[in-house]
C-alpha cells in the first residue's frame, strides 16, 4: 500500500468515526434539551389543569394544535407522574406523530382523574434535524476539501521521490552516468537524493576497483601458469618417469588447464563489462552456427548425440567475437550437460535462437544458473559459461530465458528486445 493511500485511509476512517461519535452526542444532547423544554410545557399544562379545576372547569387547550389533554376517571389516586415518549394519534391533525407525554393522577373537580397531557415532538424534531444538517454539511465539505488538498499537495511533494526511485532502478554500475540526481525542494528528499548519489558513486568506484583487481590478478596469474605449463612440458620429455609420475602429470595438466580457462573466463567477463569488445559488424548467425557444428562434430559424435537444426538466414549487427563466444558457450553447455545418446535441437529465426538439450536432472533454477560460479556438483567446468552468456546478452540487449519443457533444457535468446 502506498504511504499516501495508507495515510488517507487512516485519516478518512478517523474523520468518519469522529463525525459519527460527535454527531451522536450532539443529537443526544439536543434531544434531551428539547425533551426538557417540552416537559416544562407539559408541567405548565398540568398547572393550568389545576387552576381550571379550582374554577370548576375542565381545561381544554385549543390555541395549540400540538397539545392534547385527556381526562380519564379512575377509582382513586395512586402512583406518580410519568414522563415518556410515545406515538400518538392526534385527532385534530389526524396524523400519528412521535410525541412526549406526561401522565399524572390528580383530583379534578374533586374527582380522581388520570390526566394525560401529550405534546407533539414533530416540529422540535424538525428543528433538531435542521440544526444537525447546518453543522454537519459544512464539516463534511471541509473534510472533503482537506482530503483533496492533501492529495494534490502530497502528489506534488512525492514527485521527486518517484523520480529518484526510477533513477535508482535505472542505475547500472556499468554505465558512465552512475545515478541521475534529482532536484528536490523538500529537505528529506534532498538528503535522500544526496545519499543515493554518494552511494551510487561509491558502488561504482568499488565495482571498478574489483574489476581492475580481477583483471590484474588474472593477468598476473598467467605468467606463473605459463611457467607451470612449460615445466610440465619439459618434464614430459623425460624418459625416466614412472606410471605414477605419468598420472600425476596428467592431473597437473588438467588442473593447470582448468585454472587457465577460469582465468580467461574471468578476464573475458571483465572485458565484456568494460565494453572492450565493441567491434561491430554484420554477422550471419547461421554460418557461425554451422561452422561451430563442424567444429564440435567429434564431441557430438563422441556422445552419440543427435542434432536437429532448423536454421534460417539471420544477420545480426554486433561484435563477432561476442557472438562467437555466445554460440560457443551455448554449444559447450548443451554438449557438456547431455548424456549418451541424448539429443540437441537448435532453432534460429529472425526473432530468436533456441538451444534445447536433453540432460541429467530436472529443471534448473532459472534465477541461479546465470550466476557466476553456479554449477552442479558433477560439472567440471568453470561455472562461468552461463554467466558469460548472460553478460553478452545484456551487452547486446538480447533477452535470455531458460525453461524446462518435455525433459529438455531450453535456452532461448531473444534478439531485438525493446528496452
Amino acid at each position, binding site marked *: 500500500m502506498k504511504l499516501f493511500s495508507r495515510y488517507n485511509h487512516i485519516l478518512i476512517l478517523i474523520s468518519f468515526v469522529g463525525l459519527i461519535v460527535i454527531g451522536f452526542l450532539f443529537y443526544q444532547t439536543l434531544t434531551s434539551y428539547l425533551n426538557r423544554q417540552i416537559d416544562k410545557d407539559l408541567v405548565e399544562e398540568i398547572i393550568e389543569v389545576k387552576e381550571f379545576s379550582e374554577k370548576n372547569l375542565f381545561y381544554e387547550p385549543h390555541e395549540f394544535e400540538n397539545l392534547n389533554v385527556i381526562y380519564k376517571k379512575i377509582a382513586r389516586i395512586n402512583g406518580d407522574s410519568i414522563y415518556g415518549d410515545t406515538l400518538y394519534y392526534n385527532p385534530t391533525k389526524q396524523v400519528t406523530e412521535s410525541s412526549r407525554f406526561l401522565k399524572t393522577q390528580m383530583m379534578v373537580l374533586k374527582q380522581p382523574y388520570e390526566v394525560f397531557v401529550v405534546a407533539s415532538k414533530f416540529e422540535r424534531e424538525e428543528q433538531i434535524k435542521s440544526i444537525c444538517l447546518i453543522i454537519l454539511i459544512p464539516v463534511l465539505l471541509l473534510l472533503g476539501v482537506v482530503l483533496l488538498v492533501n492529495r494534490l499537495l502530497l502528489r506534488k511533494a512525492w514527485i521527486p521521490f518517484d523520480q529518484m526511485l526510477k533513477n535508482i532502478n535505472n542505475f547500472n554500475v556499468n554505465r558512465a552516468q552512475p545515478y541521475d540526481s534529482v532536484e528536490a525542494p523538500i529537505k528529506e528528499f534532498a538528503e535522500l537524493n544526496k545519499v543515493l548519489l554518494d552511494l551510487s558513486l561509491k558502488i561504482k568506484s568499488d565495482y571498478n576497483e574489483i574489476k581492475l583487481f580481477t583483471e590484474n590478478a588474472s593477468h598476473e596469474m598467467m605468467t606463473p601458469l605459463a611457467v607451470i605449463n612449460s615445466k610440465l612440458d619439459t618434464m614430459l620429455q623425460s624418459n625416466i618417469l614412472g606410471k605414477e609420475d605419468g598420472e600425476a602429470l596428467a592431473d597437473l595438466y588438467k588442473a593447470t588447464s582448468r585454472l587457465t580457462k577460469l582465468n580467461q573466463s574471468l578476464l573475458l567477463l571483465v572485458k565484456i563489462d568494460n565494453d572492450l569488445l565493441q567491434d561491430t559488424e554484420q554477422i550471419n548467425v547461421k554460418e557461425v552456427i554451422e561452422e561451430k557444428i563442424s567444429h564440435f562434430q567429434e564431441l557430438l559424435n563422441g556422445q552419440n548425440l543427435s542434432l536437429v537444426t532448423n536454421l534460417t538466414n539471420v544477420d545480426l549487427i554486433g561484435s563477432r567475437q561476442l557472438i562467437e563466444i555466445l554460440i560457443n558457450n551455448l554449444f559447450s553447455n548443451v554438449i557438456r550437460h547431455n548424456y549418451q545418446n541424448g539429443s540437441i535441437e537448435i532453432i534460429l529465426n529472425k526473432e530468436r535462437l533456441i538451444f534445447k538439450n536433453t540432460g541429467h536432472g530436472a529443471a534448473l533454477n532459472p534465477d541461479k544458473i546465470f550466476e557466476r560460479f553456479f554449477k552442479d556438483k558433477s560439472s*567440471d567446468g568453470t561455472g562461468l559459461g552461463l554467466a558469460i552468456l548472460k553478460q553478452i546478452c545484456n551487452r547486446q540487449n538480447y533477452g535470455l530465458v531458460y525453461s524446462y519443457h518435455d525433459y529438455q533444457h531450453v535456452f532461448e535468446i531473444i534478439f531485438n528486445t525493446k528496452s
Partner: protein
Amino acid sequence: MKILIVEDEESLQKSIEKYLTAEGNICSTASTYQIALDKLAVYDYDCVLLDLNLPDGEGLQILSYLKRTNKAEGVIIISARNSIDQRIEGLRLGSDDYLIKPFHLSELHARILAVVRRRSANGQRHITFNELRVDIDGKLVFVNDKIVFTTKKEFDLLLYFVANKGKAISKSAAVEHIWGDDADMADSFDFIYTHIKNIRKKLTDAGCKDYFQSVYGVGYRFASS
C-alpha cells in the same frame, strides 16, 4: 634455426630454451629490453619470441625497431594480455603471430616453424618423416607418395605431431591446438585418443609404420622408435 627469446620470467625463458635447443635450434636469451636490442643489433635471428612486458621497456618498441631497420626476423609475441587491441597493434608493427600465456611448448614450436616457413620464400613446403610426407600448403598427407585422405582436424593434429617429432605432447596441448579456447569441454581429452586412433588407422592402412607412441597415458610422441 637461430631463435632469440626475449622474456623476463627466467624459469619460463629456461624452459623455452631447453625445449627449442633439444629440437636442434640455437637459442639466445634476453631478459631485458636493452639486452634484446643489443643482441638484435649485432646478430641475425630466424625468429624472435617477444614478451611485451619487460622490466625496462615496452616490447612493442622492439617490434618498431625491427621494422625500422628492415630486419628479416619473424616475431612471435608471447603475452599474458589477451587483448585484441594489442594483438592488432602487434600485427601492425610487423609481428607474425601472437601467443597468449600460458601456452604449451609444443604449440610454440609449431608456431615458430609456421612463421619461419611463411617468411622464407624458398622455405620448406613439405615435412617429410621417413615414408610420410605432409604437404603444408595443400593440406595433404602422403605415404610413399600415395595420398591419404584426412579431415581438417586430423591433418592439423598430424602436422602438429610431425612438427614436434620426437617430443612428447600432452593430450591437453593437443586438445588446445585443435579446439583452441573451447578446450574446456568435458571429456575432450578422450577425443584426442579417438582422433589419434583414426589417424593411426588411416596411416597404417596406407602402409605407414605406426609412429605414435603413448607417453605415460599423459600424451603421445611421434617418433620412429
